[in-house]
């Protein structure tokens, strides 16, 4: 009986979809717009993430050592820094490399280079460039350096200066911007998702409202609630599948078109991102569409089943 009923319900759902295809098409269109919003959110999240990582990569703490600081002590400090959970990467720039870089930077400035040549010794100290995993963790790293900086082999100070305190204001501001843009993004996402769900739900409710007479007739003829509801729920699944397919298809040329633009702006090519995450995105979109279809139909029919 279950098999027969499932077969009959599916058949009836598909015949109904075709016979009232104008109504079906409007539902599919609205649902596609909702899924399009979902997809856009997925993409803009990826773009935001990529942009944030790019910015974060540019933030670092530079520790300038005194000229006399011995290399092995610097390297041992580097090792203990790397063992901190907050620290992402530590890059060591030796005194010679510092000089090289300085010369490169001032290649056009003959005066400075001449002055440098006058000096007997390399006036530049070694540098450690530290990158934290999160911008909010620079504070911890800086205070670690502060406590560590007292340490020196023969009582002399190893560290000339840590530029964190100069950069602190900028870093703080950036941390705030990043955390609040993530918060705003999340709230905007939530509002958009709720809005589009409500619109889809109401559209499906309207299509079922049109069929309310039919539902009461079916009940009077002796059909069970499940048998009446079945075709509407199956129609909801079909709406979800068609809308998801349509949305995924629309994203292909769209992301291709904006790909190079997003590459420049966020450092992420949308088209490549879409292709490499195609299955994940598809599953999210299809699952959202089908679930939305089932729940909307189920709740909307319930209202007219009271006869």
């Amino acid at each position, binding site marked *: 009986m279950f098999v027969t009923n499932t077969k009959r319900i599916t058949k009836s759902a598909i015949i*109904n979809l075709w016979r009232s295809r104008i109504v079906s098409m409007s539902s599919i269109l609205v649902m596609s717009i909702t899924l399009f919003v979902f997809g856009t959110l997925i993409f803009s999240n990826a773009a935001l993430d990529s942009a944030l990582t790019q910015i974060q990569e540019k933030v670092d703490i530079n520790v300038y050592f005194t000229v006399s600081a011995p290399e092995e002590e610097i390297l041992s400090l580097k090792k203990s820094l790397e063992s901190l959970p907050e620290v992402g990467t530590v890059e060591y720039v030796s005194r010679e490399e510092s000089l090289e870089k300085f010369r490169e930077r001032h290649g056009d400035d003959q005066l400075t280079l001449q002055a440098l040549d006058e000096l007997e010794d390399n006036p530049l100290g070694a540098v450690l460039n530290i990158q934290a995993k999160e911008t909010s963790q620079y504070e911890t790293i800086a205070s670690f350096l502060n406590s560590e900086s007292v340490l020196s082999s023969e009582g002399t100070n190893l560290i000339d200066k840590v530029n964190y305190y100069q950069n602190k204001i900028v870093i703080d501001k950036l941390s705030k911007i990043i955390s609040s843009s993530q918060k705003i993004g999340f709230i905007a996402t939530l509002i958009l998702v709720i809005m589009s769900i409500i619109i889809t739900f109401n559209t499906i409710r309207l299509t079922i409202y049109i069929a309310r007479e039919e539902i009461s007739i079916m009940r009077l*003829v*002796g059909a069970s609630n499940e048998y009446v509801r079945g075709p509407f729920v199956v129609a909801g699944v079909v709406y979800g599948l068609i809308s998801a397919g349509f949305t995924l298809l629309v994203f292909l040329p769209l992301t291709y078109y904006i790909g190079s633009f997003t590459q420049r702006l966020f450092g992420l090519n949308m088209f490549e991102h879409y292709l490499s995450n195609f299955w994940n995105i598809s599953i999210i979109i299809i699952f959202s569409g089908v679930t939305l279809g089932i729940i909307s139909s189920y709740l909307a029919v319930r209202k007219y089943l009271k006869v």
Partner: protein
Amino acid sequence: MIYFDKVTKCYENGDKVIDDVCFTIEPREFVSIVGHSGAGKTTLLKMLLAEEKPTEGSIYFGSSNVSELSKGKKNVFRRKIGTIFQDFRLLPHKTAYENVSFAMEAAGRSDEEIASDVPHVLELVDLGEKIWHFPHQLSGGEQQRLAIARAIVNQPDLIIADEPTGNLDPINTYEIVQILKKINELGTTVILTTHNKGVIDSIGKRVITMDKGKIVRDDKRGKFSL
């Protein structure tokens, strides 16, 4: 046997549409209920179909107390009753064939039974040529005959016809009444409500007359009198 036991129905605003009604209908009877609009005929039938609940009293159909049926049992109960309405109540997006087969599917009949019974019953009401027509492609009389086909296809114990000829011309009215009489002769109980004097007089069977929610006459071989 159908038994209305001191049934009263009030609507939420306090209007009493059925007032302490008591009567019995025996199996294979043909009962016509007459009365002005608003006399309570349709409410009576709705309660028998478990669409409405009586405020007081009970309704029995065979061994079941109709007014206490759970939601899940209502649909099983309704398969014992065939219904015909003034406004036909056909499924607009289904063909004549599908309208009839839907009632059989809902009752859980097999595909083989459906394939053999549906054309047969449509033939009986003279719609054999129009089984793939949609309701809007049929005339009023044809739509009502389709509704009758749907009502009788599950071989119900009872046919309820609520003003089935209200929207039809005299010739179609005559045809519908003849079909109902035929169904009754074959052993099905029929309850008919109508305004039409000619219909009542041509049937010549039991007539219950209602007025303002009460039964005012109950004649074994009644004539239309209001």
